[in-house]
């Protein structure tokens, strides 16, 4: 049996659109009280709702520890803007930003921009991978110690520590360097839902956290193995990936027995795996899957956030904490620290020589 890894928990705080800050901030604070790793806020141009990254920026000063992971799509947005906005979320949250990468596949979304027609998902996910790649390069384009404020020479920065990224993708190019200095986490955490095949390939190559959807712990374990194998093929250490099982949860009917619906089961097919039952049974399911080594954690999408997130935090999480399966507080300050991921070295920085040996 593999060693038990720390359990990671995250929650989506979307649901029906709201336009006031208090509702989202309240949910993020609730998740923070449960010591969850992060909250996500889904986004799409195709449906009503506020801009997710803006909402989580608004929530940043109202929270202290919880990771903040908005969806930012890559199909119609400039890669340079995406990278700047996510880096800025990391600055305003002092190292708690993530980015859930997604694509816009529909003609309806394309017509809102009138700039390019809808394209197949495989093509858009390849592009999303390039946007993630360009974004990471831009985050690295300032070395951490580029700002020198050297009064003797009058130089504010050491321009030798700023780097052009000269990224050439199939559909865009970016010269760089970034305008935003390297963010506190070095690189904010990249999250990809790896359920579909083209997305999974992008996830294995670029994501720190991969969400997967399956109805049994065995199938989830299989997908996790697949993601890790693909990551190795891209030259990555698979232990730098966290694979979370995505569950839509309905804790409204606490008396009914737990159910797991197949992903294809209506009416919630779009939400993937659907759990209905009580908070205690959910804790049991999480315990079983995690003990089986099938996943590194769970991403829970409460079907009615106000009700279900409260039950997750005060019911499920409390029980997991009792069982010593989940932490009772955030020991670190950044999202990478919650996830047990190290701060990435800068690809542009030369290997660290002892002081004075650098030319």
């Amino acid at each position, binding site marked *: 049996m593999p060693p038990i890894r720390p359990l990671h928990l995250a929650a989506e705080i979307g649901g029906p659109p709201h336009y006031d800050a208090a509702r989202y901030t309240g949910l993020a604070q609730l998740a923070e009280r449960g010591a969850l790793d992060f909250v996500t806020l889904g986004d799409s141009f195709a449906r009503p709702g506020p801009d997710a990254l*803006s909402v989580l920026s608004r929530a940043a000063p109202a929270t202290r520890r919880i990771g903040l992971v908005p969806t930012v799509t890559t199909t119609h947005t*400039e890669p340079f803007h995406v990278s700047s906005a996510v880096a800025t979320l990391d600055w305003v949250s002092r190292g708690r930003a993530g980015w859930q990468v997604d694509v816009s596949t529909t003609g309806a979304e394309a017509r809102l921009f009138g700039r390019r027609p809808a394209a197949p998902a495989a093509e858009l996910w390849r592009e999303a991978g390039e946007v993630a790649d360009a974004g990471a390069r831009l985050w690295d384009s300032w070395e951490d110690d580029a700002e020198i404020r050297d009064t003797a020479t009058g130089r504010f920065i050491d321009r030798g520590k700023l780097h052009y990224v000269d990224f050439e993708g199939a559909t865009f190019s970016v010269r760089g360097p970034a305008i*935003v200095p390297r963010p506190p986490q070095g690189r904010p955490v990249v999250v990809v839902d790896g359920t579909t095949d083209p997305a999974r390939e992008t996830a294995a190559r670029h994501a720190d956290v991969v969400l997967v959807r399956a109805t049994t712990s065995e199938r989830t374990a299989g997908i996790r193995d697949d993601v890790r194998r693909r990551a190795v093929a891209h030259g990555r250490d698979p232990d730098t990936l966290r694979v979370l099982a995505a569950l839509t949860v309905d804790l409204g009917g606490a008396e009914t027995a737990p159910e797991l619906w197949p992903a294809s089961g209506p009416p919630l097919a779009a939400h993937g795996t659907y759990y209905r039952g009580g908070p205690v049974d959910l804790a049991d399911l999480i315990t079983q899957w995690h003990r089986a080594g099938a996943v590194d954690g769970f991403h829970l999408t409460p079907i009615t956030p106000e009700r279900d997130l409260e039950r997750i935090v005060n019911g499920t999480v409390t029980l997991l904490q009792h069982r010593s399966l989940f932490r009772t507080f955030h020991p670190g300050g950044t999202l990478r620290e919650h996830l047990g991921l190290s701060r990435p070295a800068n690809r542009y920085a030369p290997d660290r020589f002892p002081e004075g040996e650098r030319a």
Partner: protein
Amino acid sequence: MHLAAHFPGVNNTTVWADPRSRSQIDFSSFEHLARTAERGLFDFFFLAEGLRLREHNGLIHDLDVVGRPESLTVLNALAAVTDRLGLAATVNATFNEPYELARRLATLDHLSAGRAAWNVVTSSDAFTGENFRRGGYLDRADRYTRAAEFVATARELWDSWTADGVPRPVAHRGEHFRIEGEFGVPRSPQGHPVVIQAGDSPEGREFAASAADVIFTRHGTPGAGRTFYADVKARLARYGREPDELKIMPGVGFVLGDTDAEAREKAAGIRLQQISPQNAMLALEQVWGRDLSSYDPDGPLPESDPVPDSALVQGRVRHGDPLAVAARWRALSREKGLSIRQTVIEASGRQSFVGSPRTVAAELTEFVATGAADGFILVPHLTPGGLDEFVDGVVPLLQERGVFRSAYTGATLRSHLGLAEPVWKG
């Protein structure tokens, strides 16, 4: 009188070598300046934008404050730590798309309960365009037609929901944009976020007169201010607008001291810090368009003429024809017997209000009373504490004179500015 605070980003205004200078990127700096502005009952807090780092002679410019966050993201975070202060971001209309930007601005207006503003700028700069898909192919004329259509399209989107909260489809077909579909955000608390325009060309003034709520200018001297003020206000009638519907706010510096003499001495010291010998040579090369490293900043100006169409400087807005600027600088230098550095200091100063709080309060009041401005965008030279002494020293005197509010009377930026909510063409 209307007052706004500018957080200086990439510039040579900030005296970063001052020991009181703090980070230009940590959120605590933005929070400090915004809270100070709100304590001073300011109309709004203003952030500029950066899309490509400036270069000089093919190298990244390294003498000034560099590196800043993305504006709208910071302003959303500031909405959490302020209650009344307007939150204004410069966002380029060339390297963005109307649907997406209108959605982000409407979101800020919702999340701040009606405090959002957008400073519309354009770029025809292929250098900046190298960071974007669109590239830099828009010429000068096109960038204004695109900006005008951009703002009009954003307004169509902002107006597109019914009063009952139902989205209605938008079908926009223009020269620059073709947009079809439903906007994702209901009408926001201000109806439309406040639109600010910065730029001084005839096209820019016309664009402001037709479409902006506030114009951010560089005309900070009383004479130039009055001429500009009269010109822009006269253009409004053509668009069926009243003079009060566009507020004119120059960006100005200030230096305060216990006495006028002390303030003048401080101001001279600040100018020396802002224009170091290296910065003076850089400014000179930016005008002359070639390498002048063999010259001495404490020596005389070059006798030869500038290279007019030089690519020496990239990513920086040019002001004026280099030959004319050089001629002006030479005349100034000859007349007063100034060195290169002294000339640059003398020539590059923007209007600054220098004096005791009482003197500065009187001058600001006079400026507004004589039709040179409706208010000011104050640019502190220290980050983030540079506004503190203004709020503590000058604001009470303006209140005493009855020219500035002693409490916010409304909740939205439009109400601070005395602007009506736009008619809902719904």
